[in-house]
């Protein structure tokens, strides 16, 4: 009972957005809950108004690139923090952690200038590479790698297996669950970026879908809420599907005690 009620409360805003996206002009402003007819007109205008398909594709590409980059860099760094020993390791770790506290808004202008001088404006490189290094992900993976018995590492040392081979052949597969979790997390975060993609792109060819959402809202004249909500649905649908599809896998990973 509690479960059902809290479940409905949590998803209500999302359902509401879906419902509104099917409503016609007047219905929205009179505050109806249920559309009189399920019209797809809003979706049609949403697609007409902005190149949604291009945007969706770009979002997908950017998110996947960022995800891949973050996974590679974070797991490499986390591996170094757990399985290699060198002077200053702790110090560098704290340096990493401290980056989480730097407000992103404060770094935006210098970063824009950097990207500009690298000639990365209007490119996927400019959209993605600045996000490849992520303290949160490194932290998460480091905690996970720490739970890997150090004997696994020692056994491979005795067998003469190289660090890199141990990394790819043992650490990554063993930490699969956490890596999946992180992958989903970074995909979603990347998908939801707005201000940065707006700054570094100057044309529609590589803009992302969140900008499209903003493009549908207006300031001085009335926004067409039905169309905006249709846009909202188009923006959240891919991530919701990913979440629902990944849910079971995530769940499995979380429950499976593996060899502990």
């Amino acid at each position, binding site marked *: 009972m509690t479960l059902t009620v809290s479940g409905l409360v949590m998803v209500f805003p999302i359902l509401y*957005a879906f419902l509104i996206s099917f409503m016609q002009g007047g219905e929205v402003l009179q505050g109806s809950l249920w559309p009189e007819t399920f019209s797809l007109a809003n979706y049609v205008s949403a697609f007409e108004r902005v190149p949604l398909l291009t945007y969706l594709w770009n979002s997908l590409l950017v998110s996947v690139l960022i995800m891949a980059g973050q996974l590679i860099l974070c797991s490499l760094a986390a591996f170094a923090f757990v399985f290699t020993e060198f002077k200053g390791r702790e110090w560098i770790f704290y340096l990493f952690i401290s980056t989480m506290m730097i407000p992103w808004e404060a770094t935006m202008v210098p970063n824009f200038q950097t990207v500009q001088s690298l000639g990365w404006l209007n490119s996927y490189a400019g959209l993605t590479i600045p996000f490849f290094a992520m303290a949160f992900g490194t932290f998460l993976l480091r905690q996970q790698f720490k739970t890997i018995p150090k004997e696994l590492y020692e056994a491979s040392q005795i067998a003469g297996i190289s660090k890199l081979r141990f990394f790819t052949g043992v650490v990554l597969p063993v930490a699969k669950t956490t890596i999946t979790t992180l992958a989903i997390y970074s995909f979603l975060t990347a998908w939801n970026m707005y201000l940065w993609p707006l700054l570094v792109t100057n044309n529609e060819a590589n803009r992302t879908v969140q900008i499209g959402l903003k493009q549908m809202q207006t300031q001085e004249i009335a926004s067409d809420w039905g169309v905006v909500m249709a846009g909202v649905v188009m923006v959240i649908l891919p991530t919701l599907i990913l979440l629902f599809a990944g849910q079971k896998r995530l769940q499995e990973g979380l429950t499976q005690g593996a060899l502990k």
Partner: protein
Amino acid sequence: MTTMQHEFTADRQVERKRAWSNWATGMLFLLPSLLLFGVFLFYPMVRTVYLSLFLTDSQGVPIVFVGWENFLNLFQSTSFQISAKATALFVLYTVPAGIVLATALAILANQKLRGIGLFRTMFSATMGMSVAASSVIWMFLFNPSIGLFNRILAALNISGVQWLLDPQYALLSVSIATIWMNTGFAFLILLGGLQNIDQSLYESARIAGVSESCKLRKITLPMLSPTLFFVTTVSLINAFQTFGQIDLLTKGGPMESTNVIVYSIYKDAFINYNVGSASAQAVLLFVTVLVVTVLQFKIGERKVHYQ
């Protein structure tokens, strides 16, 4: 003996070489991250600290060195005091409530029931919602004339609330929306934490005839504490840096009641072109988050029960 010593030095050399190669390997693994951090975080941060001591032109080029003046002005400005207070309140509203909610949902969803997967999906759904999309929806819910909340209140014969327009409620309203947006992520992590708790602990508690609330206090929460600690840390840092929903829902108003420091930084830097003042605020924010996080580690680690 000399050969022994000779061999020993030889060993030391090999070891030193190996230590160096270890260091090099470690650094090589870290290099990509360090490089990007350096370029996209540390460099701008250093620049921010530098700029906080200047007045700049609209393009952020320093013109006049003013030393601590930007900071002094901030401390004297009521606007900044309001910002600081709003930030503190926002953190206070969102972090504890968000964690309690997510924990409660996680405990609810950790039962073994048929179809529980559906509820888990429902609870984690907000994780798939972008801030932009969520804000649009919440703006609609909060709308004083056609929004759902006021219509519910009206149905209950309670006069409507100006959710986002009344300085008394605006921060609270934004906090409610924020809690909702952040629940999905916290829920997923906490559910994972719950599922890692050894079931035998509950079995022995059941044999001892311990009450449910006692089980919660004595087993679940202590065993969940490392996860809770992690979630708290991340939530705290995120709360201090919340930007999107403020921009979309209230733009810092009304009467600056939701003008949290990050938003104030954004406004100063991008709308008012006071890069110096914005930089000074960024430095203060960074220091605050750093102090809070360190404190949290100091206090939190003592209470955390590692398995």
